[in-house]
């Protein structure tokens, strides 16, 4: 794509989240702090029976979401305690990935979605016309439309707080520092160091997610240390920016158009000779 993130960053550096799920206690403070700061409305009073998760997933009205996964598997270093059965309870706080190649941004026809000076992707509700193109474009299913206003809404990484030199509300409140905020390059190094620690402690199933700039979205602005396959947490294993093929599609369209034009011309020429 023609978009050059580094150019957009201006003087400041790209910032992001590193969510270390190995120390998440599933308290959901991130969900609440996010809603308090951003005035996100509550998301309904439905008991789901999905372990302790009653907010189900990211949506226009839930910008941080904690997944709870109960598994009959041992947790690396953890000694088996539940009778003769191995068991672990995974918790992970999900959030908008603020992708390097953000499809929502690519498809937004109004300029409501834009790339900020911090490298994050933000919806501007005064510009959004509610077309909803961004909703299916997101490979993570993050962005949604608010029922009341009909406008798109998602995590802004607390754009206003970043402007004031403050960290996002979720990262600030996180009791165990499972959600860390900072310079993305530094976070990437920190994530790799942490992964080594967790591996050394015996949790060999741990892995990083979103840290690789060569992945289908060019790496994300929100990385995760997961303790199992991404699918287990409801994350796509190999996300691809849905607009990845747009240039080649346009090229093919161009070639096809040229071919068609040539055909028409040829037909006309051939037909004219008759």
């Amino acid at each position, binding site marked *: 794509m023609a978009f050059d993130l580094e150019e957009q960053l201006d003087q400041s550096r790209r910032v992001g989240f590193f969510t270390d799920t190995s120390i998440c206690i599933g*308290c959901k403070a991130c969900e609440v702090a996010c809603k308090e700061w951003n005035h996100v409305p509550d998301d*309904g009073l*439905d008991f789901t029976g999905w372990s302790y998760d009653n907010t189900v997933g990211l949506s226009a009205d839930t910008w941080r979401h904690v997944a709870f996964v*109960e598994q009959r598997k041992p947790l690396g270093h953890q000694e088996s305690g539940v*009778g003769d059965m191995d068991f*672990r309870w995974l918790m992970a706080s999900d959030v908008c990935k603020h992708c390097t190649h953000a499809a929502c941004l690519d498809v937004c026809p109004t300029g409501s979605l*834009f790339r900020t000076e911090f490298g994050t992707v933000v919806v501007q509700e005064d510009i959004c016309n509610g077309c909803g193109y961004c909703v299916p474009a997101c490979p993570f299913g993050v962005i949604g439309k608010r029922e009341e206003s009909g406008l798109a809404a998602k995590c802004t990484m607390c754009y206003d*707080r970043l*402007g*004031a030199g403050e960290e996002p509300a979720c990262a600030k409140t996180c009791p165990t520092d499972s959600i860390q905020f900072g310079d993305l390059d530094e976070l990437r190094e920190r994530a790799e160091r942490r992964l080594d620690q967790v591996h050394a402690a015996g949790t060999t199933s741990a892995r990083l997610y979103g840290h690789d700039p060569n992945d289908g979205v060019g790496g994300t602005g929100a990385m995760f240390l997961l303790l199992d396959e991404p699918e287990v947490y409801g994350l796509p294993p190999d996300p691809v920016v849905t607009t990845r093929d747009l240039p080649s599609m346009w090229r093919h369209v161009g070639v096809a158009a040229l071919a068609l034009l040539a055909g028409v011309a040829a037909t006309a020429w051939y037909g004219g000779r008759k």
Partner: protein
Amino acid sequence: MDLRWPLLRQLTGGDRTGRGPAAKSARTEALRARTSTADRVVKSVCPYCAVGCAQNVYVRDERVVQIEGDPDSPISRGRLCPKGAASLQLTTDAGRRQEVLYRPPGGADWQPLDLDTAMDMIADRVIATRRETWEQERDGMRTARTMGIASLGGATLDNEENYLIKKMLTALGVVQIENQARVCHSSTVVGLGTSFGRGGATTFLQDLQHSDCVLIQGSNFAEAHPVGFQWVMEAKARGAVVIHVDPRFTRTSALADLHVPIRAGSDVAFLGAIVNHVLENELYFREYVVNYTNAATILREDYRGAEDLDGLFSGFDPGSRAYDVGSWQYEGMTAAPASGARDQQYGQRGGGAPPGRTEVQGGTGVPLEGRPERDETLRHPRCVLQVLRRHYARYTPEMVERVCGVPRHLFEEVCRHLTENSGPERTAEFVYAVGWTQHSDGSQFIRAASILQLLLGNIGRPGGGIQALRGHASIQGSSDIPTLFNLLPGYIPMPYAHEHERLCDFLRGDAPQQGFWANMPAYLTSLLKAWWGEAAREDNDYRFGWLPRLTGSHSTYDTVIAQLEGTVKGYFLLGENPAVGSANARMQRLGMANLEWLVVRDFNLIESATWWQDGPEIESGELRTADIGTEVFFLPAACHTEKNGSFTNTNRLLQWHHQAVEPQGDARSDLWFMYHLGRIIREKLAGSQDPADAPVLNLTWDYPVHGETAEPSAEAVLAEINGWDAQGRPLSGYGELKDDGSTACGCWIYCGVYADGVNQAARRKPGTEQDWIAAEWAWAWPANRRVLYNRASARPDGSPWSERKRLVWWDAGAGEWTGHDVPDFEAGKSPGYRPAPDAAGVDALSGIDPFIMQADGKGWLFAPAGVVDGPLPTHYEPQDSPVANPLYGQQRNPVRKVYEHADNRYQPSGNEPGASVYPYVVTTYRLTEHFTAGGMSRFTPYLAELQPEMFCEVSPALAAERGLVHGDWATIVTARNAIEARVLVTDRMPSLHLDGRVLHQIGLPFHFGPNGLAKGDAANELSAISLDPNSHIQEVKALSADIRPGRRPRGPALPELVRSYQQRAGVDASTGMEA
């Protein structure tokens, strides 16, 4: 040309694709964080649990616009849990009640009422009820009180508010003053207090980082105290082993290294077996144990233990269901306890028999003098260590399997981790909460842990100790400045009615003569001076006679019975919701339905305010609104951002929160309510010559007020709590208190919080600018010490046990104790000091007596006094249990408090016929997303949506056995009531294998009730009133029940279902009542 036009910006700037700055709208450009545009930032403290997270309150245009963590706090480091993070919504949500409501007797609905009229009406009712029910004497002894008025609440309030509640109500002659501390941690005060000398946690949260092994049992730390849990994670990151022993696999277990599933209510057997393991394998910290505990002390010859008497101790009288504790004493000395049943030996020590009390324990004939005999080789067959060894000999790993359902290999892992991480170089810390306290022998759970930590040498040392996690912002404060019937401020016991009792008799009877409690005359005299000022003189006994007298147990559960009997006519609920949060919730409502008047002060219309209109008994047809004569006043309360005051956190730390904005509408602080109620009552009583009114009219009650609402000055109340000398100068510590009437002090352990006239609780030097002790952040009692008994962090000779575990040590050059923390010891008393034989008071403690509040200066492995159900923790089954006690013939705690009442039926247990009707163990607990009885979470949308409905947790095996369907409904039935809940089938609720059977447990969060946004039946509909005899705490952590698929019946069919179960089980008035 207007460059604000995006297309132009795109074409002329660097953002050619128009996805960056070119797309920025004017609104986006103008966005500013409201934290940066606030008019002011007010320093505050979170109002939920007792971790005491600091908050920054951002105010703009006199409205709170944001609340978030204060990074300066050394405890919370700027973080908040979901509840703390929701405190903006809690305090500013449009749903919060701001107007007074009034329900006349028999009324069908609320009526509006103006605040002044309401206050005047309430004052009239207090005066009238007091007159009608005044009791000058009972059984010939002066009681000078009213049993017609009771109050409940205080743990969510400020210390200053609790102080005024206690002061005014006591002056009015009200003795039934109680708060959540009774229901949550009263057994902590007994357990820790008798073992170590003070009833508070021995350490502070940040010190967890220095622990080598953190054993969490009886607590769901990560869920109930999430921000405090960061220090467990710090310890883990430094290599500590984290163990969670709990019936359920919780969010705490998920982060632990080892989860040990255990049968609810069997912890004494588990801990006793570790004690046995430590003793039998000689793994105790010998030098610590010999010098710092009473292991070497020799007991009397006539003492017999549970080992000899099949679960009883010597001195048991089945008729009175009580022990004569005389035979539990030391040979050669009678030691009065620093906590627990302080009045036990009044009869013998003070002269005259102790009359009129239901819990008279008898006494000894030995006066308080002499030195106990000791054998420092620990070989004497009657020395405490040998008695301990014999007592716990039968607590074997096999027994742990049979009683607790814990496999042997798991038990041994716990023993290994604990003992490997204790000693001079390493320390282990215990963390518990109400999973231990809320049992019919709850105090003994805490005692068991205390014994173990003393044996391992972990008390008073960095990374060691016992962390009692408390769950209300100031529940420690509401114990310290007690809105509790049996205590005066600073743990001075409330006097019982005795014939011709004067101050000197009381002090002789209840004050130890050695250790710091020997100064009780100074503490009590100063309190009386604070309350009655000039009217309190030496020649009138400092008005000791104006204190109303106790004649037995007047706990909140006794109050409920008294309501049903018609004795209690008026009731204050000050931030408490017993219709959901107290045991036998139905009985709580039936009690309130029998009142003449009820005052509810809260943020929202909680169940305790609306039961007459829409309570479960209205639905079932047991009560009709029109027939209920209770007059109900609902007064909206101010929240923490709307008032000044101090909270005392779980580690005795007083933190001041500053008022940010004025309360709206009729909302007022409880300081305002109690001050003005007292003022109005005093105005109405002015000129009265009735001697009963003298304590009210002479009470010091002239606090300065300010603002439009005439809010009293909380700082002036704090200054009185701190105390002053004869010239009115603030005192700087309790060492300055005198027994000659020249000092006044509202709470001696808080003396120093206003030293130099400075509010020390408001100190906020950032944690990053201090060491981990952070001594300049707020102020901790006593004397700003953070680790209690820290003299024990040094060897007997005063040098640290190890470099790694250095905390406080003797500086021989300077001739004083020094170190990182404030030494919990007389600064100049050298390790070599030994008292003269006739030494008394503090001088009687030697240089190697770290437990300075104890009469003998030692940690009590064996409690010769103070614990009424035994000097050593012994496993008894819960009141209602499907298991027969495998350890002794004695099934239940023989001295537990049980109440025979048709609405409080107990169930058959163990091998008793009918026990199989209630075959499963139920345990109750908190969730991160909610707060106690729900008044501060179920009405808050951001919290309600996270856990919107009552549910039960069951294992797949139980679900299969009973046909329960995940996500569907189940009905849970006890002999008290039946409730419905959504079903969560989960592996987190393991079924246990014990004694050849599979035992299933059912988990029930206790937060829910029918009001608010997050709803459901209350778990406390199922629980019974059966109490620990020491602390009167209810047993709600382990009971038995049946579970069946489907919703519960509606209407009269509900009580019918409960009755049919009772009949099937053969339940009658005598079931479970035996001693």
